[in-house]
């Protein structure tokens, strides 16, 4: 399998504190790569560097596309999603709570719709070309809502959904930008076992059917071990282990990082 993402010597410092220390790893196409580690290991900071919210102190991050590799450092802010096609979700869900489920999914298709609406001009004139494009966007939203079983709640406010559904909605909203790489920040946090299982199914679907690479931060080991193809273990900002899920389970370094050293 070819590489999708290469992180090379990534370092992030806040003042004197080194949150990520010279981290390198690869994530492959059509694979789920999990980043695990104890609290404060620097997992979310890695995400924030990848998705343009922080500017790393040092190091490179490359995304491999058909046209060649592009450096994520060059893109900041909204361009990561818009140009580089890296999507993400957040540890504490960030939906648009007062907007409907459908509207949430349409905002994710904002850039295409803006062009289709002629930067609002065609839209104001109510041209057919725009209305058709809008219908396509709604169809795409319906496609995803069917998958997560929320079609009948499409017109309700996103903030009124149960917690588990909000998590799933946030993931499919990210999928609506048609990303190359999907970064999920603790998607299973707060889910019950049944919801966790559904999440696993959804992620596997995204991986196999949508051919989208997934980078996952997770504490829930049933999720990590159940679906990861590759695991990267961080502690104090350093990579201490890298391998398959089974190798990780038996790794001495990993057990020490989580349980401490027996002396």
């Amino acid at each position, binding site marked *: 399998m070819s590489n999708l993402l290469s992180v090379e010597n990534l370092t992030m410092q806040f003042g004197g504190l080194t949150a990520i220390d010279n981290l390198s790893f690869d994530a492959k196409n059509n694979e789920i790569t999990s980043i695990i580690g104890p609290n404060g290991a620097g997992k979310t900071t890695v995400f924030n560097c990848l*998705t*343009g*919210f922080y500017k790393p102190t040092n190091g490179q991050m490359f995304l491999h596309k058909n046209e060649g590799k592009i450096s994520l450092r060059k893109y900041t*802010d*909204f*361009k*990561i*999603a*818009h*140009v580089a096609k890296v*999507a*993400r*979700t*957040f540890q504490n869900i*960030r*939906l*648009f*709570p*007062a*907007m*409907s489920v*459908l*509207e949430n999914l*349409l*905002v*994710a298709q*904002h*850039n295409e*719709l*803006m062009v*289709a*609406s002629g*930067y*609002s001009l065609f*839209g*104001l004139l109510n041209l057919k070309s725009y209305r058709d494009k*809008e219908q396509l966007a*709604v169809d795409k*939203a*319906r496609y995803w809502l069917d998958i997560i079983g929320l*079609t*009948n709640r*499409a*017109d309700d406010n996103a903030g009124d959904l149960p917690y588990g559904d909000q998590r799933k909605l946030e993931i499919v*909203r*990210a999928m609506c*930008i048609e990303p190359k790489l999907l970064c999920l920040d603790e998607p299973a946090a707060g889910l019950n076992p049944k919801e966790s299982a559904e999440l696993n199914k959804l992620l596997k679907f995204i991986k196999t059917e949508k051919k989208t690479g997934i980078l996952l931060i997770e504490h829930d080991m049933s999720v990590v071990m159940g679906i990861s193809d590759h695991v990267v273990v961080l502690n104090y900002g350093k990579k201490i282990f890298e391998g398959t899920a089974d190798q990780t389970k038996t790794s001495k370094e990993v057990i020490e990082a989580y349980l401490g050293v027996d002396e």
Partner: protein
Amino acid sequence: MEKKDIIQSVKDSLFTGVIALALFGPIVGLRTASKGEGLFITPQWGIVFILVGLCILGRFLINLNSARKTEFTFFSKFTSKLSSVTEEKAKHLAITAILFAVVFPFLPFTDRYFMDVAIMILTYIMLGWGLNIVVGLAGLLDLGYVAFYAVGAYSYALIATTFGWSFWICLPLAGVFAAFFGILLGFPVLRLRGDYLAIVTLGFGEIIRIVLINWYEVTNGPDGITGIPRPSFFGLPFKRSPDEGEASFHTFFNLEYSTMHRIIFLYYLILILALITNYFTLKIRKLPVGRAWEALREDEIACKSLGVNPTNTKLTAFAIGAMFGGFAGSFFATRQAFISPESFTFIESAIIVAIVVLGGMGSQTGVVLASIFLIGITEMFRDLEQYRMIAFGGAMVLIMVFKPKGILANRKPTILMHGDKK
């Protein structure tokens, strides 16, 4: 209620009284007035005692039946009822209101004074609708909106007096100028956090005003610009005696000359301008850019993660809001025929913000109701101008405390997947 509670609440009320005495004692009780050389003090203890008494009584009553809760439920029930009524019958209400607005000038009781008040209310409705795009939809608190109103008014006045172009050319130009100023200001500041943005826009509004006062060569300073051309009815002026060989409105239509003609024309002008603003807002809200405004209001970080460019999106909201402010400004200039910096103070911005906030941010109907209430009803009590502003400010605080989303705040989705089944 037990005896202990009563004693407790009496104590509490007396404490309130002490505080009230400290508050009102010096400021209300000891009124300063100039007499000859220097200031003297006129005591007004009567008013102080009434105020303190009211505070004690009010506090006691609140404690007694913990009225706060019941009042609050009553209040929120009432407003949600109002919201649902206005929502259910939205179409009917809107049509009735527009019809009423159209026939208003010809109703038997409508006189010059009513017309003036109505024109003023409509101007504020238009400003409120314009600002609603910025504050209500995009969630950007703009405390300097009056700056764009001023830019519109001054550019209209300057273009019209310098080049003598007609209203219909100057109006769009004024709007374009105001939008340009909106972009000019917005570009650097829209990155700022919400509260900083509010202060910066306030600063910008004041800078514009100070420049208007001091830039004599162009703005004629505090004296303002006079002799701004009145609008004409498609080329027909509203003059009693038109120039030789020229028709005026009343001669052309064979009517008795009346100053009301011009007033009625102005009334319809602002009505149309306001309705255009409303139509435009309702339309654009359903377009991608409108949804992106609301999404930015909800969560800017999530927007960035979805590839929405926050700066550009906010900038469009700012520019469009400014443009409507500019239109309203040119209307103001042509109606008054005279403008000066005094009309564009911070308090004007605060009133427009109050209209949007009280109506319920993002609610178009709310703006109408708040304008009628705040401008119309208080206009009837002109003499009580200062009390009016106290009531304005007080209402803003109360709304934030009890119903922070505004009185009418039922948001309808901009697009439905399942059609209107309710």
